[in-house]
């Protein structure tokens, strides 16, 4: 599923040095579990996002391995420390080899 995948991320624009901020991410993806059957009784093949990572200036914040039990449109909320001004990069890895990414800048006042 390379079409219609849209990542959305909520990150505060500014932070104080060392502040811990809450990040919310959502990506539109059907997360086909491989357990469902179509009308003819054939199993619909698995097609999910299997990994999600968040990094800040090249340092890892969280690395998640996703299994088919994660709901459609995978949502994550987690917390990150912001030591300096920089950029968060968020990356999602699809079963079909596609990689979706987005980034957000945070300014430390």
């Amino acid at each position: 599923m390379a079409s219609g995948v849209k990542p959305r991320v909520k990150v505060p624009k500014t932070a104080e040095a060392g502040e811990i901020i809450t990040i919310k991410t959502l990506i539109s993806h059907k997360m086909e579990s491989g357990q469902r059957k179509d009308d003819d009784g054939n199993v619909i093949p698995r097609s999910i996002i299997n990994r999600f990572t968040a990094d800040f200036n090249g340092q890892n914040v969280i690395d998640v391995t996703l299994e088919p039990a994660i709901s459609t449109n995978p949502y994550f909320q987690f917390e990150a420390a912001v030591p300096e001004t920089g950029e968060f990069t968020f990356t999602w890895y699809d079963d079909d080899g596609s990689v979706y990414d987005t980034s957000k800048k945070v300014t430390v006042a």
Partner: protein
Amino acid sequence: MELNRRKLLAIGMAALGATSMGVTQALASLTEEGIAAFTGGAETTAGDLSIGAPEIAENGNTVPIEVTAPGAVAVAVFADGNPVPAVATFKFGPLAGARFASTRIRLATTQNVVAVAQMEDGSFQLATSEVKVTIGGCGG
């Protein structure tokens, strides 16, 4: 032995019961295998690890859960009643602000959600939370 209708029914019910028990046990052991694969067979204890999950989920397709695991480097989440018990594994990096993560998961039926955390000292903690599911989330 004369088989009348009542006896037949009783036998049938017993057989059904036995079969469904077998299925549950098979799934539970899959979860145990998953946990063993994550811990490498190490003992798990209760600790500060906690799971936040609703007591009753009306829709098994999206059940919000959160794990809080102070001092953990990684947390694996399992759902012992799903056809595939593994749900997700969270690994915390150097910039993780708190050992906390929240997501939405699918639950096929009423079951336990199990979280196993690997702590910084290499020990493992385990926490369980039961979720009652009204409508299962595995489709077809």
